[in-house]
C-alpha cells in the first residue's frame, strides 16, 4: 500500500455534512417553525382585532354621520320651514301690512335663529327689502328699495331696536341694483317653489352664504320672492368642532366637489380667492379627502378604507339632500386612531415571542454544541481505537518475528515498523559502541524508497553535543534540526543529504545506561506513538545485550583485513581486442603518440554490443562456448580492420567499439561504425546459426563528445567517458529485439542518407530529455 495515497479506501466517506445538517438544520428549522407559527398567530390575532376595531369604527362613524346629518338638517330646517311660514303669512296679508309682516316675522326669526344672516323680499317691479343684523344682537337693519318712476333708485336704510323703533335712517343711491337680475330671485320665480341657491360669498360679510327662496303671488297679483340667507360659517364651526377618532375630520361638499364647510374650508377659500365655484380640495394638501371623494364618485356613498402613502384611513361618505340638490358629508380618520391598540398589542406579543425565540435558540445552540462535542469525542475514541488496533497489529508482527532476539539476524522489521507507526521518512537505530566514543547505525530504513542501509559511524568529536544528549539518555524532539544546536551537527552529517528537517530521538536504555538511540526523521506522529517507540527501544536494548560481538572489534577486523593476494588489479589493456589507435588510419593518431591522446573528442562514434547471459549458458560445454566467443572476437577484429575503428574493448558481456577518436570531428566515423555494426551483425548471426543458437546480442550506437586519455601509471589504461558512452550502452540494453541495432537520433541524422532506419519511438531519458531512437535495418 502506498503511503501517499490521496484517498484511503478503508475510510468510509464521512457523514459529517449530514450530521452537521442534522445538528444544525433540525434545531434551526424548529426555531424557524416556532417563529413562523408564533408570527402567524400574532398576525392572525392582529388581523382579527383590527377587523373588529374597523367594524366598530365604521359603526361609530355611521352614528356620527347620522348625528351630523341631523345637525345639518336642523341647520337648514329653519330656512325651509321659515320661508314657507313667511310665504303663507305674506301671501294672505294685505299689501299695506306686507312690510310690517316682513319686518316683524323676520326680525323675530333673526334674533332666535343664529345661523340666519338676513332676509330678502322682492317683487316683480324690482322693489326690494332686506333685513339684517344691526350693530348688536338686538338691533336690526332694514334696507328698502322702492322704485318710483322718474326718480333714481335709492336705498333707504333704517336701524331699529328690538321694539321696532327707528334709531337711525339714511339713504344711499341704489345705482343699477335690481333684485330681479339675481339668481335667488330669477331661479326661484322660474322654479315656482322653495328653491335653494348654490352657496356664494356675500361681498359685505365675506361669508359663504346659502339662500332659501320661495315665490308667492301677492293680493295685488304681483310675484314676490321671500328669501332667507343662511351663513355656512355656523355649519363650518360645528363641523370643525367635531372630534372623530383622535385626528379625524369632517367635511361638507356639494356633488361637484365644492367645499361647503368643515375641514379645509379656510384653505380652499383662500386658494379660490373667494370664488365658490373654485373652492375645491387641493389633492396636494388634502390627498386623503380627495381620494375618499374620488372613491365616493366612483362607488357611491358608504364606509370604506383608503390607503395613502402606505397609511390606511377609514372614510365614510353620505348624501344629504338639500332642496333639489344633494350635499356630500365626508368623514375621514386614520385607521391607527382606532386600531392602534391592536398594533400595540401585537407589538407586545411580538416582543414576548422574540424573547421566547431567543431563549429557545440559546437552548438549541447549547444542544448543538453538546452534540458536536459528543461527535468529536466519538471521533477521537474511534481514532484512538484505530491507532491502538494498528499498534497492536504492529506489535503482533514484531512479536511474531521469529528471529527477533537472534543477534545474527538484522531484524529489519524494527525500523520498518517504527517508520510505519510514526509516519517517519526515515527511521534508524543507532548503537553506542563499547568504546563509548562511536555511534554506529545498526539499521536505517527509508520508507519512501523502501530501502535499508546501515553501518555509518559517527565519532564523538564530530557530534559532541548530540552525543552528549544521547549518552545522557535524553529524548529529543525538534522541528528544525538545522537550527537546534544539540542536533545541528547530526543534521549536517546525516540528515542534510537526505533532506529531512524534523528529528525525534528516543534513547535505548540498557541495564547500565543508554546504549543507543532511535532516530525518526520527519515523523509527524512520533510523539503520538512515543510509547511504541519506547517499546521498540526496549526490544532493541534486549537485542543489543544478546549480541556478543563488539562493533569495535568488528571495525578493527575490517581495518586490519588486507586484500587477498589473488586480487591483483587486472591490466586494463588486456580488455582491448583492438588497442586504441593501433590502426593509425584515416588521420587517427598512431599508437606511438597515444600518450598525447588526452582531452576532449567532439564526435566519437561508440558502439556497444551487449551479449546476453544466454550465450554463456546456452551450451553445456564451456570449451565449445569459448571457441565460439573466440571466433566472434577474431571476426570483430577483422571487421575493425576493414572499417578502420579506433578500438575494441571487451568488458564482461559487453564489447565497446570506438571510432573517430580525434580532436577534430571525423564525419566518416559514424558511417564506418554503422558499416561495422551491420557486418558484425551479419557475421555473428551466421556464426550463431552455424552453432544452432538463437541470436543473443543487441547493438547500440551513439555519436557524441567524450573525454578520454591514458590513466594511471604503467601499465596505463586508455579510457573514454561521456554521454555518448552511456547512451550507446543504453541503446544496446534497450534495443527492441535480439539481433537488432538501436541508434540514437544523432546517428540517424548523420546516416539517414546512406542507411535504412525504422523509427522505434520517442523516449524520455533522464539527463538527456526527449529523444527518438531508430533501428538500423541495412544499407541503402
Amino acid at each position, binding site marked *: 500500500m502506498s503511503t501517499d495515497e490521496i484517498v484511503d*479506501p478503508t475510510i468510509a466517506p464521512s457523514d459529517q455534512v449530514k450530521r452537521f445538517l442534522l445538528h444544525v438544520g433540525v434545531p434551526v428549522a424548529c426555531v424557524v417553525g416556532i417563529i413562523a407559527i408564533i408570527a402567524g398567530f400574532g398576525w392572525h390575532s392582529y388581523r382579527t382585532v383590527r377587523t373588529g376595531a374597523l367594524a366598530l369604527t365604521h359603526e361609530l362613524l355611521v352614528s356620527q354621520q347620522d348625528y351630523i346629518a341631523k345637525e345639518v338638517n336642523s341647520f337648514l330646517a329653519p330656512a325651509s320651514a321659515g320661508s314657507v311660514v313667511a310665504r303663507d303669512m305674506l301671501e294672505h296679508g294685505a299689501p299695506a301690512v306686507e312690510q310690517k309682516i316682513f319686518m316683524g316675522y323676520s326680525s323675530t326669526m333673526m334674533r332666535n335663529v343664529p345661523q340666519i344672516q338676513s332676509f330678502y323680499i322682492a317683487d316683480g317691479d324690482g322693489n326690494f327689502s332686506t333685513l339684517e343684523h344691526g350693530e348688536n344682537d338686538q338691533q336690526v337693519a332694514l334696507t328698502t328699495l322702492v322704485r318710483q318712476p322718474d326718480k333714481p333708485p335709492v336705498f333707504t336704510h333704517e336701524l331699529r331696536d328690538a321694539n321696532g323703533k327707528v334709531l337711525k335712517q339714511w339713504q344711499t343711491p341704489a345705482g343699477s341694483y335690481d333684485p330681479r337680475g339675481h339668481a335667488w330671485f330669477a331661479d326661484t320665480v322660474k322654479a315656482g317653489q322653495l328653491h335653494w341657491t348654490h352657496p356664494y360669498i356675500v361681498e359685505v360679510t365675506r361669508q359663504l352664504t346659502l339662500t332659501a327662496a320661495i315665490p308667492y303671488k301677492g293680493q295685488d297679483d304681483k310675484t314676490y320672492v321671500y328669501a332667507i340667507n343662511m351663513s355656512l360659517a355656523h355649519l363650518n364651526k360645528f363641523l370643525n368642532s367635531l372630534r372623530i377618532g383622535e385626528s379625524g375630520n369632517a367635511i361638507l361638499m356639494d356633488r361637484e366637489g365644492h367645499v361647503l364647510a368643515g375641514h379645509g374650508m379656510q384653505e380652499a377659500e383662500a386658494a379660490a380667492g373667494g370664488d365658490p365655484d373654485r373652492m375645491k380640495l387641493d389633492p396636494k394638501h388634502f390627498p386623503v379627502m380627495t381620494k375618499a371623494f374620488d372613491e365616493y364618485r366612483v362607488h357611491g356613498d358608504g364606509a370604506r378604507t383608503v390607503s395613502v402613502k402606505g397609511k390606511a384611513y377609514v372614510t365614510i361618505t353620505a348624501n344629504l339632500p338639500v332642496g333639489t340638490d344633494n350635499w356630500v358629508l365626508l368623514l375621514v380618520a386614520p385607521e391607527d386612531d382606532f386600531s392602534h391598540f391592536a398594533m400595540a398589542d401585537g407589538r407586545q406579543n411580538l416582543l414576548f415571542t422574540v424573547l421566547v425565540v431567543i431563549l429557545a435558540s440559546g437552548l438549541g445552540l447549547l444542544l448543538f454544541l453538546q452534540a458536536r462535542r459528543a461527535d468529536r469525542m466519538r471521533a477521537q475514541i474511534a481514532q484512538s481505537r484505530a491507532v491502538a488496533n494498528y499498534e497492536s497489529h504492529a506489535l*503482533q508482527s514484531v512479536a511474531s518475528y521469529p528471529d527477533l532476539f537472534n543477534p545474527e539476524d538484522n531484524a529489519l522489521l524494527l525500523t520498518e515498523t517504527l517508520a510505519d507507526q510514526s509516519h517517519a521518512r526515515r527511521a534508524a537505530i543507532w548503537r553506542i559502541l563499547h568504546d563509548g566514543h562511536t555511534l554506529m547505525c545498526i539499521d536505517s530504513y527509508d520508507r519512501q524508497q*523502501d530501502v535499508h542501509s546501515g553501518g555509518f559511524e559517527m565519532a564523538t568529536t564530530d557530534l559532541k553535543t548530540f552525543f552528549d544528549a544521547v549518552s545522557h539518555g535524553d529524548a529529543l524532539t525538534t522541528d528544525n534540526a538545522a537550527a537546534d544546536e544539540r542536533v545541528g551537527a547530526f543534521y549536517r552529517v546525516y540528515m542534510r543529504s537526505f533532506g529531512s528537517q524534523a528529528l525525534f530521538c528516543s534513547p535505548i536504555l540498557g541495564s547500565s545506561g543508554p546504549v543507543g538511540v532511535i532516530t525518526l526523521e520527519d515523523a509527524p506522529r512520533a510523539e503520538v506513538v512515543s510509547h511504541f517507540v519506547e517499546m521498540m527501544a526496549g526490544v532493541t536494548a534486549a537485542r543489543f545485550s544478546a549480541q556478543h560481538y563488539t562493533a569495535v572489534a568488528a571495525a578493527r577486523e575490517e581495518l586490519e583485513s588486507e586484500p587477498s593476494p589473488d586480487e591483483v588489479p587486472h591490466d586494463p589493456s588486456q580488455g582491448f581486442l583492438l588497442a586504441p589507435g593501433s590502426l593509425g588510419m584515416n588521420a587517427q593518431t598512431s599508437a606511438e603518440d597515444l600518450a598525447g591522446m588526452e582531452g576532449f573528442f567532439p564526435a566519437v562514434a561508440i558502439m556497444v554490443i551487449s551479449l546476453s547471459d544466454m550465450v554463456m549458458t546456452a551450451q553445456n560445454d564451456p570449451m565449445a562456448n569459448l571457441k565460439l566467443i573466440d571466433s566472434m572476437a577474431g571476426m570483430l577484429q577483422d571487421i575493425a580492420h576493414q572499417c578502420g575503428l579506433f578500438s575494441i574493448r571487451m568488458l564482461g558481456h559487453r564489447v565497446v567499439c570506438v571510432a573517430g577518436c580525434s580532436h577534430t570531428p571525423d564525419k566518416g566515423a559514424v558511417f564506418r561504425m554503422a558499416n561495422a555494426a551491420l557486418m558484425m551483425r551479419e557475421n555473428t548471426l551466421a556464426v550463431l546459426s552455424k552453432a544452432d543458437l538463437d541470436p543473443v546480442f543487441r547493438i547500440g550506437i551513439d555519436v557524441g563528445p567524450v573525454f578520454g586519455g591514458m590513466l594511471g601509471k604503467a601499465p596505463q589504461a586508455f579510457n573514454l567517458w561521456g554521454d555518448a558512452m552511456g547512451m550507446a550502452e543504453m541503446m544496446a540494453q534497450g534495443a527492441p529485439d535480439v539481433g537488432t541495432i538501436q541508434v540514437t537520433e544523432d546517428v540517424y541524422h548523420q546516416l539517414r542518407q546512406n542507411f535504412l532506419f525504422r523509427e*522505434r519511438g*520517442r*523516449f524520455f531519458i533522464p539527463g538527456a530529455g526527449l*529523444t527518438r531512437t531508430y533501428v538500423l535495418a541495412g544499407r541503402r
Partner: protein
Amino acid sequence: MAANAPLLELRDAVPSFEESGLMPAPYNLRIMPGECAVIDCRDFERAAMFADLCTGMIPLTQGSIRFMGLDWSTLYDRQLNALRGRIGRISRHGSWLSLFGTHLNIMLPHLYHTTDPFDHVVRRATELGHTFGFPGLPVTAPDRLSGADLARAACVRAFMGRPDLLILEDISDMLPEETVLPFFETMTAARDRGCGVLWFVRSSAAWHEYRKAVNIHMRLLDEGLFSLRVV
C-alpha cells in the same frame, strides 16, 4: 486490514450472468499477501472477465469478494476507485489511451491516486522502463508502439507504484523473451513486499520457469474455477 488476513478472497461469489457472461457458479479463491496464484485459462475473454470480477467491476448475485478486507459491494465510488488504485494490472486488451503518450498512460494511475512527487514517479517509470528493455520512458502514443514495446509498457504500468495486488493477464506471446526474466524478478520483488499476484496463463510454457514459486494453481473453465495441484 487485519494482520494475517487474506489479500483477495472470493467467497462463493456468483457473478451476474447478464453483465459478465461468466458462468453463474460460486467462485472461491483466497490469496494471502505475497502469494502467487496462477490461473489456467484458454479463453482470453473469460480471463479478462474474471479479472474484472476480482476487481469488483462485475455485480454479484450472491457471495462476496473482499480485497484487503474490504467488500467491493459495500464501498462508495471514491473508495472503489482508490482501492483499485492499489491494483497493478496487465490487460490483454491494452486499455491504452492513444490521446496521450505512453508515458502518461503509464504514470497517470499513480499520479491520480497518490501524492508521490512527479519527479519520483518519472524516475521510477524510467527505471522500470530500463528493466523491461526500454532505453528510457516511451513518449510515443501507444498505438504507434510495436506489440513487444506495448507489452513492455504494460509491464511498466502494472508494476508502477507499490501495488498490493497484481492481476496479470497473459501477454507472454507479445512479451519479448529476454523480458521474461525481468518480469519474474520484478514480480518476485513485489511479492517479497507482500503483494499478491493473480496470474492468468494460457499455457504452462508461460510460467514453467516460475513454477516453484507459485502457491496456487487453478483452472478457469466455463463451469467455474477449479483447483489444481501445484507441482
